[in-house]
């Protein structure tokens, strides 16, 4: 990833923390954290909007709890758009994405603040009935769902097809495009019926690569940016699984590995990571698990005790190439085959 980021001719980062990506930036502009920001729709909209389990639609308003002079990243982008001469296009894009209607639409020549955009969105969403101040009182914008919205299946004569004939057409189209471009592309999986394909490493344990590496998230962390929050880092340090490599107890015994040891995990391409092992009964004997919340190395991470790190970096084991890509959905193989051994340093 580091080599890839170095290829960019110019790199701007607008971030509240100088994270790993920002470390490669030519220019870094500071912005607000979540506690400083005013954002409409701070919740995960599909969970509260799309679910038929709720009686009402609900959009939360994230309100600033502290102002320490940082600017909202939208305001920074508006400045850049104005100075770079594409403010009109920028405003048009906002109108499109926020679905602003009528008088609430942004005019192309005027510069709007983030606050104004939130105001307009609320106005547009509520048909002019509500203002930002109204929504701020309750902290959310909500409205009742109709019966049809709550029980959609009753009102739609939908069919779930079992035979996807359009896959055949899509395959043909892709074949034409890739042949014209001279790109070798396998379209054999564009079949109308559900098919099963083994993962790239399935059934092949040669060379000692007999374990599947799997990953998951810790409940209290999101991706790797939670490691900029010292409370969550502290929680992780006191968690039996966070940041560790999990092996089935009997599998570990077979490899002569004991609890707390530092082990080395290697994929078929020779990519290696090292970490502390935790032995468990709650993992399949053929799997090796770790969360994907670790691996940070940015200099601005909160201070941590000597000898501790942010945990293993699962991404190190993934291969981003055509062999590991599912051409149908664009997903990469996320359970690579690996082999384990004791790390040279031994016990942590």
């Amino acid at each position, binding site marked *: 990833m580091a080599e890839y980021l170095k290829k960019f001719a110019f790199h701007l980062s607008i971030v509240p923390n100088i994270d790993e990506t920002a470390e490669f930036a030519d220019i870094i502009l500071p912005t607000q954290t979540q506690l400083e920001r005013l954002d409409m729709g701070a919740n995960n909209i599909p969970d509260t909007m799309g679910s038929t389990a709720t009686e009402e639609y609900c959009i939360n308003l994230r309100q600033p709890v502290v102002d320490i002079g940082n600017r909202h990243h939208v305001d920074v982008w508006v400045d850049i758009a104005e100075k770079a001469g594409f403010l009109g296009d920028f405003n048009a894009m906002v109108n499109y994405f926020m679905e602003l209607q009528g008088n609430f639409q942004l005019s192309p020549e005027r510069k709007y603040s983030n606050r104004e955009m939130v105001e307009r969105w609320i106005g547009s969403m509520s048909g002019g009935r509500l203002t930002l101040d109204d929504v701020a009182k309750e902290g959310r914008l909500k409205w009742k769902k109709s019966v049809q919205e709550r029980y959609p299946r009753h009102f739609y004569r939908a069919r779930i097809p079992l035979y996807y004939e359009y896959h055949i057409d899509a395959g043909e189209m892709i074949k034409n495009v890739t042949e014209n471009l001279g790109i070798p592309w396998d379209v054999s999986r564009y079949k109308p019926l559900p098919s099963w394909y083994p993962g790239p490493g399935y059934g092949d344990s040669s060379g000692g690569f007999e374990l599947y590496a799997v990953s998951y998230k810790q409940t209290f962390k999101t991706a790797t940016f939670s490691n900029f929050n010292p409370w969550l880092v502290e929680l992780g*340090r*006191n*968690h*039996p699984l966070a940041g560790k490599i999990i092996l089935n107890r009997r599998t570990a015994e077979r490899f002569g590995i004991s609890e707390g040891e530092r082990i080395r995990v290697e994929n078929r391409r020779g990519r290696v990571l090292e970490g502390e092992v935790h032995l468990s009964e709650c993992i399949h004997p053929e799997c090796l698990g770790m969360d994907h919340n670790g691996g940070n190395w940015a200099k601005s991470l909160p201070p941590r005790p000597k000898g501790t790190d942010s945990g293993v970096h699962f991404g190190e084991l993934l291969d981003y190439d055509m062999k590991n890509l599912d051409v149908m959905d664009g997903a990469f193989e996320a359970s690579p085959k690996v082999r384990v051994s004791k790390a040279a340093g031994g016990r942590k």
Partner: protein
Amino acid sequence: MTPKYLTGVRFANHFGVLETLSFWGEGVGAGLFIAAVLAGERFLETAAIAFVGIAVLALLVHLGNPQRSWRAVRRVGNAWVSRGTLMIGLFLGFAVSGFIVQFIAPVASFAPLLKLAAFVCAIPVLIYAGMLLRSMRAIRLWGGPYLPLAFGAQAVASGFTVVWTYVKLFDAVPRPWLQPVTLGSLLLCAAFSALHVARAGKSAGVRASVERMRSGDLRGLFVIGGWLLGIAIPLAILTLAQANLEDGAILALVASFCRLYGDFAYRNAIVRAGAYEPVVPTAPYALFRKVSAAK
């Protein structure tokens, strides 16, 4: 992972070397004062005050807010820290005043009375550390009657061993009772210390504590320091002296140094080995375990 996140046996880490130094200083000081008064060794009475002084200093350094330490005597009716602080304060008050007034002619006659008061106060000071630890009901190693007795016996044995060595080196006046009493105090110390561990119970916490002292990282302190250096070697030297087989000054000095270090090592091992019982109960999960085991 901090110890607070452990679910099994957890060793208490709130008290350490500083607190042991305090327990040792006040114990040895009180024991030495009693032995010195009985033997009539004024210099050692002063040395005893210095030992207790070291203990008080260690205690003040241990406190998070030493400027409020006077508050420590507010709950004499309930807390052993209050009782101990009061007794140590009274002991020091009487002993230091007794020491000073003996040089002031008009009030010199009060000196024996003050010394007697200090002597009386030294007795609870002997057992204070043991009683304080015993009051921590969560740590079963420290429970029961034998820890205060063992701590007290350790202090008395240290006091008499030091006095015995001093008399041998610097005092020509023979005290025929001193050698057997010192020997007896060492035997008593061994008996109470052994009884304490033997009768501490068999809970998970106690088993872990004993294991740590017997063969774990505290073995050096407990077995070698507390028992070998603190009891076996002084006992051997005293026994040889009793049998008139050996009467050397160097060996007498060795006996005292071993005894003083052994006393500290024993207390430090006991303080650091204190363990809490596992906080996670087995009962609510037992059924699930049985189902698993059956498969």
